[in-house]
């Protein structure tokens, strides 16, 4: 298969207006992915499936990411002209900037016919609240149907053009998207003998005297 850079250049030549960028991967696998703008996602997907050289006929995995809003502290260097003839005075100033969050959907594509892959596509939503719509790739690969429903259920990404967008793991009356970072689960903690991690924090909240393990025991 061609290199990711060559594929990106080919995609850019084929879709001149589209936003297509290569996302590097610093891990040993070095599995790079393509971040595609939502406007061109469906056309790019059709091209990748129908292209004779790639023939990516199988979408094996659809998954989601939640990137919450976060404050980024940046150090800004400002140089002002100092004394005449001397070096400029450089002052460092820290400023915080609110980086807006987004939801991301990741598609892993393989070619069964050409025995190659994966080609990984990513698409980002505008934000995490009201602009959460992305084009569905179920019309391109039928195997996306249940997995896009799962991403809708757990992350709240709305797939436009999906034939049957309902919750798939949680029940229909359920409120919220449990895989989001800011999901607050119902507080129904129950005593357990060896809490640790997050469960220990919950245990301390419910049984303040349980700081020492074994201090409290529920009766049977």
């Amino acid at each position, binding site marked *: 298969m061609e290199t990711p850079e060559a594929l990106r250049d080919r995609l850019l030549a084929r879709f001149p207006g589209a936003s297509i960028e290569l996302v590097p991967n610093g891990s040993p696998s070095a599995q790079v992915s393509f971040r595609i703008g939502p406007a061109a996602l469906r056309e790019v997907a059709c091209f990748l499936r129908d292209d004779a050289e790639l023939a990516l006929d199988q979408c094996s995995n659809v998954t989601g990411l939640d990137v919450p809003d976060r404050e980024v502290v940046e150090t800004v260097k400002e140089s002002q002209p100092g004394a005449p003839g001397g070096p400029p005075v450089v002052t460092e100033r820290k400023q915080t900037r609110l980086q807006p969050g987004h939801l991301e959907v990741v598609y892993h594509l393989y070619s069964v016919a050409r025995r190659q892959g994966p080609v990984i596509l990513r698409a980002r939503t505008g934000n995490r609240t009201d602009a959460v719509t992305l084009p569905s790739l179920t019309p391109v690969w039928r195997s996306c149907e249940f997995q896009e429903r799962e991403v809708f259920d757990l992350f709240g990404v709305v797939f436009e053009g999906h034939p049957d967008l309902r919750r798939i*793991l949680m029940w*229909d009356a359920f409120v919220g998207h449990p895989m989001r970072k800011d999901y607050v*689960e119902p507080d*129904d903690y*129950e005593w357990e003998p060896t809490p640790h991690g997050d469960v220990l924090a919950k245990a301390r909240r419910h049984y303040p005297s349980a700081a020492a393990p074994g201090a409290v025991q529920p009766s049977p």
Partner: protein
Amino acid sequence: MSDAPTAASVPGPISAEERDELRRHGILLTSVQELYNWGRSHSVWPLNFGLACCAIEMIAASMAKFDIARFGSEVFRPSPRQADLIIVSGTVTKKMAPHVVRLWNQMPEPKYCIAMGACAISGGPFKQGYNVLKGIDRYIPVDIYIPGCPPRPEALLHGLVELQEKIRQQPLRGPDAPRHLRSDLPCDATVPELGATDIEPPFSPDVWKPPTLVRPDKA
């Protein structure tokens, strides 16, 4: 019967040793209760119903190597109307819980319940999560708990033998009689509703009470 009249003229019930002695001589003495319970305990038909990995062990227990047929329970019924025993084999998610309780309600008395594995007993490793029921005994009266993750088929067979023993010990009259011979006990379990974040009610007070905290220093 066990509660036969014991007047002075009537000799008392014979002891187990005397009965075994008679049995050695070819005389079988029994009671209606013993015969009835013996028959019931050896034809416990389980519901053909699995939830998670414990179900794989349950299937293994029904196959030739472990052979649950040796204990009279090989007839896994696909309909709850024909089943005597529900083996809750695996994780009960909150979405699945109403259906499990409804299956239980559809089974005719006498019926028994085995909670197989850590998840069915308490939620297991998923206990503190948002989507798993913390034990099926919140809605269904459980007769036998089989710990394990998952329990081996031998453990399930042991649980079944314990259940048979429990059935054989049930008196047919009095306050300890089984549910199907009494009219004062409710047979239906509360079927929970799927709410916005949790199932409601979170437990049925008829069969389960939340554990109460006991402070050793203030006991």
